[in-house]
């Protein structure tokens, strides 16, 4: 039997197969990072605005959102890292549970902040907070749909009678 070094075509197939298997993971990572980027971006801008206007309590609560989103980003980067998954170091159900919990935390804080900021500052923060809530809800949906599908083994291809070509 040839060794891997003597079988470049086999190596190519292995790489292609590995890459195909990893693509859903890369896609999941990509899909989850997008709404997280929005949470980070809007909370950062709202924090700057709160600082400029002297709304220190709003700023500190926005910092909690920002830190929570950063924590989620770290967890996604580690949990959906190809090498970690291949080595069996990723616990996808635990990751899903943790991300859901943190999404709910962000939504609750942002909703409470929306009420509070309206009393203090009118609509100054409403738009940014609405976008944060929207992004967190989107992230929650994605966490509930795309992570479970990564954990299930791929179904074997169905054999069909020869189709028209």
């Amino acid at each position, binding site marked *: 039997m040839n060794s891997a070094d003597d079988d470049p075509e086999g190596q190519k197939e292995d790489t292609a197969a590995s890459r195909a298997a990893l693509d859903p993971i*890369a896609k999941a*990572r*990509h899909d989850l*990072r*997008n709404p*997280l*980027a*929005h949470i*980070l*971006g*809007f909370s*950062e*801008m709202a924090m700057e605005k709160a600082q400029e206007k002297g709304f220190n309590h709003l700023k500190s609560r926005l910092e909690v959102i920002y830190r929570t989103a950063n924590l989620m*980003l770290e967890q996604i980067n580690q949990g959906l890292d190809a090498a970690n998954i291949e080595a069996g170091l990723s616990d996808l159900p635990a990751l899903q549970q943790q991300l859901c919990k943190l999404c709910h935390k962000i939504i609750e804080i942002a909703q409470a902040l929306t009420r509070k900021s309206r009393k203090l500052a009118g609509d100054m923060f409403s738009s940014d907070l609405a*976008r944060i809530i929207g*992004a967190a809800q989107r992230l929650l949906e994605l966490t509930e749909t795309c992570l479970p599908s990564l954990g299930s083994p791929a179904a074997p291809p169905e054999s069909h009678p020869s189709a028209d070509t």
Partner: protein
Amino acid sequence: MVKVLYIEDTENNRILVTRRLEKQGYRVLTAELAEEGLALAAAELPDLILMDMGLPGTDGWTATRLLKADLKLRHIPVIALTAHVMQGDREKSLAAGCDEYDTKPFQFPRLLAKIEALLVSSKSRAASKA
């Protein structure tokens, strides 16, 4: 005023980047799709283009190749923006003709530094040709 064209299909990203850049004194034009972006580039001749690589329909790589194939537009520096972090994404973007590459989530100071560096080098290239 320096004009930046941002081609991006996601509204939140357009809002975030526009607000950040406008705060820095840039004028920002936006387009949701590649075709719209290419038309706007031809009409407005921006100083720099931020290109989302994952555009629906014509993607950012194709749009960049089209830009770089156009004699009137090829001089405009393009920064590829992507949330993809697969190995090879950077090389693919540079091979398509992008001048720089950055990933989402944005670290805005990093993106801004890249924008400013490209604008400086683009200006000095234009000056040396004159």
